[in-house]
C-alpha cells in the first residue's frame, strides 16, 4: 500500500510517499494514523494532532472509521486551503 503525504504533513514526515506493510490489526484509517505515529520521531511529529489531519483513500475523502482494506493509495494532509 502506498501512503502519500502533502503540505506540512509531508514536511514533517520527511518523504512524499512510502510503501508500508501493515500489521493485520490495522483495519481503519484511524488505526493507521495511530500506527503511523509510532513509527519514528518524524511520523510522531506529523501525526501528533491526528484530529486535524484529513485522509483520502484512492483519491476520495474518507473518515477515520473508513476501512482500509480496498485501499491501493492512502493520503494524509492538512485541511485544504485552495481556491
Amino acid at each position: 500500500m502506498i501512503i502519500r503525504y502533502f503540505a506540512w504533513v509531508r514536511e514533517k514526515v520527511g518523504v512524499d510517499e512510502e510503501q508500508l506493510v501493515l500489521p493485520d490489526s490495522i483495519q481503519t484509517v484511524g488505526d493507521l494514523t495511530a500506527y503511523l505515529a509510532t513509527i519514528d520521531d518524524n511520523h510522531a511529529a506529523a501525526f501528533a494532532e491526528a484530529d486535524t489531519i484529513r485522509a483520502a483513500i484512492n483519491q476520495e475523502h474518507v473518515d477515520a472509521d473508513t476501512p482500509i482494506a480496498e485501499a491501493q493509495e492512502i493520503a494524509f494532509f492538512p485541511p485544504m486551503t485552495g481556491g
Partner: protein
Amino acid sequence: MTITPSVRVQAENFDLTEETAKLTAGRFDIGAVVTFTGLCRDEGGQLSALELEHYPGMAEAEISRIAERAAERWPITGLTVIHRFGKIAPGENIVLVIAASPHRQAAFDAANFLMDFLKTRAPFWKKEHLKSGQDNGWVDAKDLDEQALTRWEQA
C-alpha cells in the same frame, strides 16, 4: 442529462474571455454567464508569493465531483474550473470558475457553490513566502470557509 464540466489543474495562467467563449460559442440558449476569479493578495505588502501544492489526480477528480454536483442541482449549460498550482505572485490569478445557464440566479448560485466547496474540499494547500525572504509557513484553513458550506445543505 447533465453536462460534463471542464476541469483543469495547471501551472499556466488562463484568459477570462477565451474560457467564456468556449462555453458560449455557437449556443443561443445561454442567458447568463458568471465567472469567479480568485487572485493572490500581497497581504498588506508583506507577501512575495504563494506556493500552491496539490494532490495530482485527486485534485482533478475532486473538482469534477464538486462540479457534477453543481450541474445536477442547477440548470447549467456549461461549467469550467481551472485551478493553478506552483508559485503565484500577488496580483496573479489562482482559480477560475465559470457557470453558464439560461437563468441568472442559477449561474450565480452554481459558481458560488463551486467556490465554497473548492475552498474546503479540493486538495490544494497554500504556503506563504514573504518579501523578507522568510517562509511564513502553511496557510491555516478558516472555520468561516467550513461554515459557509452549511448554507448549501438541502432540506
